[in-house]
């Protein structure tokens, strides 16, 4: 029995075929893998293959051939040259792949926001449950204490967390991010929505000079209520899931999810004028992180522990950029690793393990191996293992028992000493990051 051609083998066979026939079929070869995984060769008008060639490639691709007739498409039928260049990834010299995905994970697409005039800091972990949201809350409160107007946007839509640390349920504004998305889908994410999706956190003390504005994932109108309010319970129940289930539908004005998020953030920043925006990104390789990490601008904090599962997941994520290094160049200087939940015992070896794993990751995918490389005019992007300024060098967040149940919006039970012991080095490290320090600097000096 002939062995089936599997997903990865099909692409390898298509590449092999194109490499062998590239002279006959045009200057620059484009492969296209459609939603179901079928592979096609996009050719110029005069690049049509013979019947024998069709039959040969059809057989080589097995179940991943769309059939001999559909194996070749003229590229001008599929899109303009600009459209074809947008989503392609490089496989080889003059050989590119356009990969159609079901999800909106445009990891290789261009940023939808330039590095913002309002600094944005994204909190991201490739694995959940590492204290990412808690660290974000700590930074938000710290910035408010030194006089900053901070906006926290909860983009962990499937598992809202940062919101409940900063707002009591009864203090939620009527709308949240999911409401903006469903209203935007019908063209009415208007000023009223932008106004009613933001509220101040009571976690900020009266002596603090700044404030924390919270944009929750879920608004009060989606919260189940026993008592009749403005909407009957029968209409409230399940409404959050009904909104969330539509969250990733492209809107009328944009072609993808990242574009919509970028537009929402821009509108919120224009209306509420924060000094700094903190984004709590959903964990894992998801549409949201595909927007927040490479495409929304700002500093990206990568939360991690020393476990193998974390670093395998990061390697899978970073490998999407290895095919086209220029994508990573856009934001590599804004990455920084955070060592999450550093235990009370054995701190030094824990941090060393995180640093070593991070260095291995960055050496494989981010750092340029040869400082003398002449591939571009800038100095090579490279840091030594022990260089404290290297983006792989972890900023530590120390685990403490008191933080496990910390809910600052209800008064909290963490003393300033405990807070400093857990977050002090992390906060000082974040504030010293070049991009953050530059954009949060004030005439009075950065905190």
């Amino acid at each position, binding site marked *: 029995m002939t062995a089936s051609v599997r997903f990865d083998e099909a692409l390898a066979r298509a590449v092999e075929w194109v490499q062998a026939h590239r002279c006959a079929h045009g200057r620059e070869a484009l492969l296209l893998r459609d939603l179901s995984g079928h592979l*096609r060769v996009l050719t110029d008008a005069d690049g049509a293959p013979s019947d024998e060639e069709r039959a040969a490639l059809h057989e080589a691709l097995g179940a991943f051939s769309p059939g001999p007739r*559909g194996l070749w498409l003229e590229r001008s039928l599929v899109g303009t040259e600009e459209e074809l260049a947008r989503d392609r990834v490089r496989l080889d010299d003059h050989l590119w792949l356009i990969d159609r995905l079901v999800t909106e994970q445009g990891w290789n697409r261009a940023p939808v926001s330039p590095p913002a005039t309002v600094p944005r800091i994204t909190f991201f972990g490739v694995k959940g449950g590492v204290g990412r949201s808690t660290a974000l809350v700590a930074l938000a409160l710290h910035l408010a204490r030194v006089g900053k107007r901070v906006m926290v946007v909860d983009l962990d839509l499937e598992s809202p967390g940062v919101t409940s640390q900063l707002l009591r349920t009864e203090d939620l504004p009527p709308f949240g991010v999911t409401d903006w998305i469903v209203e935007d889908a019908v063209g009415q994410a208007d000023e009223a929505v932008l106004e009613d999706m933001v509220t101040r956190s009571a976690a900020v003390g009266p002596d603090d000079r700044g404030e924390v504005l919270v944009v929750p994932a879920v608004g009060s109108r989606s919260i189940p209520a026993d008592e009749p309010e403005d909407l009957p319970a029968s209409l409230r129940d399940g409404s959050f899931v009904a909104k969330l289930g539509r969250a990733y539908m492209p809107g009328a004005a944009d072609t993808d999810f990242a574009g919509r998020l970028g537009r929402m953030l821009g509108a919120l920043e224009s209306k509420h004028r924060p000094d700094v925006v903190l984004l709590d990104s959903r964990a894992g390789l998801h549409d949201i992180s595909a927007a927040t990490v490479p495409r929304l601008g700002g500093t990206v904090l990568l939360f991690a522990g020393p476990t193998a599962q974390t670093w395998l997941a990061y390697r899978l994520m970073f490998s999407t950029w290895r095919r086209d290094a220029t994508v990573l160049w856009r934001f590599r200087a804004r990455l920084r690793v955070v060592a999450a939940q550093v235990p009370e015992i054995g701190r030094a070896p824990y941090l060393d393990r995180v640093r070593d794993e991070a260095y291995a990751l960055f050496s494989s995918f981010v750092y340029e191996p040869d400082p003398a490389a002449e591939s571009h005019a800038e100095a090579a992007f490279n840091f030594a293992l022990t260089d404290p300024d290297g983006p792989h060098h972890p900023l530590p967040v120390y685990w403490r028992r008191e933080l496990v149940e910390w809910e600052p919006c209800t008064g909290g039970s963490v003393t300033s000493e405990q807070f400093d012991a857990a977050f002090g080095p992390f906060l000082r490290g974040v504030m010293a990051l070049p991009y953050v320090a530059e954009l949060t600097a004030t005439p009075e000096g950065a905190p």
Partner: protein
Amino acid sequence: MAPRRIDFREAFDRWSRICEVERRDVDARAAKGETLVSREALDHLCGLSVESGLKYLMITRRLVTADRDGDFPADASNRRPHINELWDVFMAKAGGREGTALLRDLGGADQLKVFQTWSSQNRYAADDTVRAGEVRPRLDFFKRLRGVVAQEGA
């Protein structure tokens, strides 16, 4: 007088009205155990209907941008795809959740096979050129497409 822009929705409505009458007739005859007749004409009618409807959906859902005449964009040789190629073009362009939703509504990637053997040359074909087993799934796809187009509004 300048020619009107092509309106694929209008074209689909026109062709599909006739095709739907024929499709119902086919169903009624099949229920009585009668043999499908005039298959070549019916097949051609079905292809024109689906071609118009799919081009309308691809333009409406922004998978392609119509040219200045409202027509489906031509390739470098000024050739526009008929339905036998159009599904491949659709599959090559569809991506993301919106494209996936449309693909699901249209019956999934297996529809690829339904029209690949359709030929515009068959409009003059002799009887028994097109097999009944080819026409039936095309009519089924037409029925499904009609429902999707109807949800796009007027």
